[in-house]
């Protein structure tokens, strides 16, 4: 019995570490970041890559593991004011945050509280931070009390790294690569089998995975979107008795690519 509805849910565009896929690229990135965090030589760790490759997944995964040791704070959205970062750090320690207090005093108190409790702060979509916020991160990083792991898009990330604040400082830069078609195939198989959807997993061939990788350019997020759309089409075909689309074929793959915008036919 092919439960397309259940299969679709796995491939929704949400970050669920349960479905973390240990591709070669992901494992190398994870190893490098964890190593840098452990050594604490560099206060700033940059994780750069194209949008949707899986940076957030890695960040969240590592952050979850460090949480067990009460040493990490995960910020999945950038803050608008530099005080917001201090507020998050205060709240993490259950300390009352008074916004009326002078910024420097706030900062001084924060450093005192965290002096013997070194933390790693994960900030996702860090390319959205402004100059002032980057400056604060740099200052806090220099104290050696805080270590920052910043995930950002490749293009903006490289530009930020070239700025004077970071150029001269010790840092670790990890670049996350896209998936190879064989890894795409393995991802589909392992993810579906994890939810006991073996019948659906058998519908996918290596050739199909190659086509999917070509349409999606190996981008993790796009792959998930593609497979979600494909399963949606299969579900519709099954409901309406369209035998022609009972199995995965080139037409279905092409239709999925058209739907997600991977092919521009206009």
């Amino acid at each position: 019995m092919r439960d397309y509805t259940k299969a679709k849910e796995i491939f929704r565009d949400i970050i669920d570490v349960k479905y973390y896929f240990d591709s070669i690229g992901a494992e190398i990135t994870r190893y490098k970041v964890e190593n840098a965090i452990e050594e604490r030589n560099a206060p700033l760790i940059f994780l750069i890559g194209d949008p949707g490759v899986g940076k957030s997944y890695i960040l969240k995964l590592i952050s979850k593991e460090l949480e067990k040791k009460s040493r990490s704070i995960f910020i999945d959205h950038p803050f608008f004011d530099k005080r917001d970062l201090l507020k998050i750090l205060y709240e993490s320690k259950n300390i009352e945050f008074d916004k009326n207090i002078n910024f420097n005093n706030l900062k001084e108190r924060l450093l005192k509280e965290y002096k013997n409790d070194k933390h790693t702060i994960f900030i996702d979509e860090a390319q959205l931070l402004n100059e002032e916020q980057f400056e604060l991160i740099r200052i806090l990083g220099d104290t050696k009390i805080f270590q920052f792991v910043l995930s950002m898009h490749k293009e903006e990330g490289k530009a930020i790294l070239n700025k004077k604040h970071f150029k001269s400082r010790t840092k670790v830069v990890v670049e996350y690569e896209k998936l190879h078609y064989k890894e795409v195939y393995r991802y589909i198989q392992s993810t579906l089998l994890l939810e006991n959807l073996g019948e659906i997993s058998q519908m996918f061939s290596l050739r199909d995975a190659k086509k999917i990788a070509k349409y999606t350019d190996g981008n993790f997020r796009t792959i998930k979107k593609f497979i979600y759309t494909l399963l949606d089409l299969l579900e519709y075909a099954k409901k309406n008795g369209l035998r022609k689309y009972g199995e995965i074929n080139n037409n279905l793959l092409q239709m999925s690519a058209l739907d997600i915008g991977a092919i521009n036919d206009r």
Partner: protein
Amino acid sequence: MTGRAFGDLEKRSRAINRKKYFKIFIILLLIFVACTFAYIEFMKSKQIVLKKNIFIEKKIPKVKKSIINTNITKIIKQKEVKAKIDKIQKYDTVFLKPTITVPKIEKREIKNIKVNNTTIKKIDIPKIEKVLPNIQEKKKINITVKSLKDEESLLKTNKANESFETTLKLSKYYFEKSKFEKAILWSKKANHFKSSSFEPWLIYAKAKIKQNKKDEAIKAIETFLSYYNSDAARKFLQNIKGQE
């Protein structure tokens, strides 16, 4: 997924496929046309080469050895005749137009000859016996020219109706007037009308003797005698030779 959305995606997918197959078709067609064109050009160039070879071969056809031998003897004979003509021309008697009748060759003998360990077939062409016509001067043309007026009238007559008689009269007139060059010239013209007549030859030879060119006179008469049997010519020759 709605039905409309599905239908729309299906249409778009079909349109993409149609474009793809059309592109493939065009590419295949272009490849086919290019290959055909290249093949035609190749065949054309091959034909040109063949034609050239055939042309060269035609120019140098294979000939049998026996035919080659026959041709060689023919060439030798032609050379002999040409040498004779050249001789005649050397002595300024090119105006001679002898007519010789060649007897028919009834039988040709084919002989096998060994030359350098190879056997060649030789066709023997029998010797042609010369049959010289007899010349008998029947009528002598007497001319007595007295004055310049005569010269003018002779020239006028000749101009009105040039013939052996008129040209011979002029030749004799100039000889009597000791204008030997003109006499020779007109004797040649007379000979054109009647090569078998000895008279123009006689005037020619006499004019040459007068010019102290006895050898040329002798050669001319001898040449005449080689074509024609003439007692008068023989006697004249004996006289000239006797005077040496």
